[in-house]
């Protein structure tokens, strides 16, 4: 009995200790393959795990381990985190559950009471939580950031980030960096003035705010005119990356507002549709690169920045790989933001190419018109918020791609608080010409396509790649599939019966590799069967 008590105490002691997610632990998240500690599995944004139990030869034996059904009718876009045997999942609109990662049984649930009127352009969704110390952090569609006790789900602090009544909302998974929680904002369809914030994890006090739209007199303000900057958009609704060596937070910004009519905002509209690199301690801008100056097509730069150190033209260089919604794949210098390379990865009919400094060379007649302008890529882009993956074994860049076009229309619209501020509405999907989707592997140095796995429909699911040389992806048709990372050959698929609009993860469940993804209104997990 005494022995048993001692053992029990030891086990409890261990689990208490290991439940502490320190910054040091997050710095090595990508190597900690038993867990999935951040949105992208590590600060570099690779969505890669070195786990290799599931390989091309045995992936056909993947079987469902458990399913967790959510009580929601909203779209599920969450990426779960798995930390020391506990899975933390956000449920739309803004709830959080902690599950036993071995059984899917629930430890606790945080249910947020929301006001009646919520302004979210595209569904009351949430893409995941952050964990730091013994706390779980979630952003809410009424634009609050909430700290929860990781053991009980109790609210530790609850802070208003912005006013939800003016179209602000939080759908992004926050990112824990040092002792801070970095959190973006949604509202590019409501004429918000975008920003990226950092809050003290301990208290909820705001450490800094970077406005993605500079006010008059600030650098970049000359790219706006009149009062357009006040309603200029530039949201930050997809989780960025962190370059620890340079102490830079690298994040993407969204479209200028209004989306499809730029008449009220002549100029380049910095820092919309840009990669921004901020000093993590101060939030000061270190560098930026704008993918689409004066965007009138809603081509947000809301992709996960993929940070890779590799040789570039004969010398080692810190790089950012970025496949943008505008159908171009880019390589940037991570120390300066300088454009190094760009090439289309999908059909596009809007640019002849890119200048030496990366500025697009626009073709004529591409702007929206009252009658409508047909253009590739479509409004939802050649890719979007769902995550790409970089695999250090194959040295390939993987992503989900859309091949389709839209009709871009232009209308007139004045700003009014809490209403959509978009400047007409395009025909996003053409029923007679729906296009198709694909998973593609690119050589990140050249932008060349190495392989393609074609899909009938356009996917809203991200990709994960592994040490087992597999790429996991999902489709709107409800299939989760595993592809050979070197050839794109399908080695396994499973119909989950619901649209997949989320990113896959992998981790160890009692020493066995597991895969998890949200599909329909549920979380599915898989392990190898006998």
């Amino acid at each position, binding site marked *: 009995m005494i022995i048993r008590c001692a053992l029990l105490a030891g086990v409890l002691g261990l689990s208490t200790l290991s439940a502490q997610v320190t910054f040091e632990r997050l710095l090595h998240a990508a190597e900690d393959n038993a867990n999935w500690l951040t949105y992208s599995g590590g600060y570099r944004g690779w969505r890669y795990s070195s786990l290799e139990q599931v390989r091309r030869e045995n992936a056909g034996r993947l079987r469902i381990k458990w399913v967790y059904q959510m009580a929601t009718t909203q779209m599920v876009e969450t990426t779960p985190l798995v930390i020391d045997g506990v899975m933390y999942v956000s449920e739309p609109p803004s709830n959080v559950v902690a599950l036993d990662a071995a059984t899917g049984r629930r430890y606790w649930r945080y249910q947020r009471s929301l006001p009646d009127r919520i302004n979210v352009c595209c569904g009351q969704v949430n893409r995941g939580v952050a964990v730091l110390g013994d706390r779980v952090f979630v952003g809410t569609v009424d634009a609050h950031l909430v700290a929860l006790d990781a053991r009980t789900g109790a609210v530790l602090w609850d802070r208003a980030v912005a006013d939800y009544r003016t179209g602000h909302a939080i759908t992004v998974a926050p990112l824990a960096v040092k002792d801070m929680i970095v959190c973006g904002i949604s509202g590019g369809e409501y004429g918000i003035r975008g920003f990226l914030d950092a809050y003290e994890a301990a208290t909820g006090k705001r450490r800094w705010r970077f406005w993605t739209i500079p006010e008059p007199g600030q650098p970049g303000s000359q790219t706006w005119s009149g009062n357009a900057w006040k309603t200029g958009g530039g949201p930050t609704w997809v989780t960025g990356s962190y370059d620890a060596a340079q102490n830079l937070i690298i994040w993407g910004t969204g479209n200028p507002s209004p989306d499809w009519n730029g008449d009220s905002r002549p100029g380049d509209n910095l820092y919309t549709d840009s990669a921004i690199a901020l000093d993590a301690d101060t939030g000061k801008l270190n560098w930026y690169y704008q993918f689409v100056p004066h965007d009138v097509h809603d081509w947000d730069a809301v992709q996960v920045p993929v940070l890779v150190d590799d040789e570039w033209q004969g010398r080692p260089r810190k790089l950012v790989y970025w496949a943008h919604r505008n159908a171009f794949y880019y390589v940037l210098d991570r120390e300066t933001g300088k454009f190094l390379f760009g090439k289309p990865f999908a059909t596009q009919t809007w640019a002849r190419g890119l200048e030496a400094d990366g500025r697009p060379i626009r073709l004529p007649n591409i702007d929206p018109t009252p009658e409508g302008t047909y253009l590739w890529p479509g409004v939802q882009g050649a890719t979007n918020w769902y995550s790409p993956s970089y695999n250090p074994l194959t040295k390939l860049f993987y992503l989900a791609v859309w091949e389709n076009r839209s009709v871009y229309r232009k*209308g*007139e619209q004045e700003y009014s608080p809490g*209403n*959509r501020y978009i400047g007409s*509405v395009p025909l996003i999907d053409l029923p007679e010409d729906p296009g198709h989707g694909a998973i593609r592997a690119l050589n990140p140095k050249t932008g060349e396509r190495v392989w393609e796995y*074609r899909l009938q429909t356009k996917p809203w699911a991200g990709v994960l790649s592994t040490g087992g040389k597999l790429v996991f992806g999902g489709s709107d048709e409800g299939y989760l599939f595993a592809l050979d990372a070197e050839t794109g050959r399908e080695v396994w698929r499973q119909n989950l019966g619901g649209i997949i609009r989320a990113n896959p993860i992998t981790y160890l469940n009692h020493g066995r590799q597991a895969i998890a993804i949200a599909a329909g209104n549920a979380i599915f997990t898989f392990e190898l069967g006998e």
Partner: protein
Amino acid sequence: MRMLILLIAAAALPGQEAEVRNPRTSLADVAAGAKTFRSHCSPCHGLNGEGGRGPNLAAGRFYHGSSDADLLRNISTGIPGTEMPALFYNADRIWQIVAYIRSLSAAPAAPVGDPARGKALFSAKGCPQCHRVRGEGGRLGPDLTTIGESRAPAYLRQSLLDPDAVVLPPYWVVRFRDDSGRAHEGFLLNEDTYTVQFLDFQSRLHSMEKSGLQDYRVEKKSRMPSFRGALSDAALQDLVAYLSSLRSPGGSR
């Protein structure tokens, strides 16, 4: 007695709703409403309210109430349990949208033909072989039981003369040969990356794996013959008048 019942019925209505009438109905209001509609409503309800992802708003009948007060409420606060969101404009601006929506169905062009003669033509020309009306007829074309509610006379006329002008996805035809070389065809009901589901022209359902299929193609053409030249203009008007008369017997859903 009748008066009394009416009074009771009126009293049972929420008082303010019973009195509400759109105060913004000038031509300028309609034009302003059209502008707002185009920005906010057209992605689901169509550029001219003809419907799409959301219902047709040009038929003058609305699933969630057809009074001015109903429209004001549904646009202002959205419709719970549907994809219809709230639009946070002031009441004046919303009334203009209501005025615009009303204008879409204000003066439906009444068909000039004779519905009774049209009904006889409908049978004589063999339409029921493929089209069903109140449970009678085939299933290889759209059910026309309430077609007069959802389609304007001009649309019906166009469909008769030029059936390929608009062919909705359930009537697209998929054709291919299987790995034994046998030809298949039918209405494409569904497909994904790996499988296809279709209804053949003998009304049998099929689901097949796509791998191994050859010459797989989807034709977006109608199987209905054109009546251009086959019917006099008067006969065509009669047929359109009959189709326009096909409506559900009750009130709005």
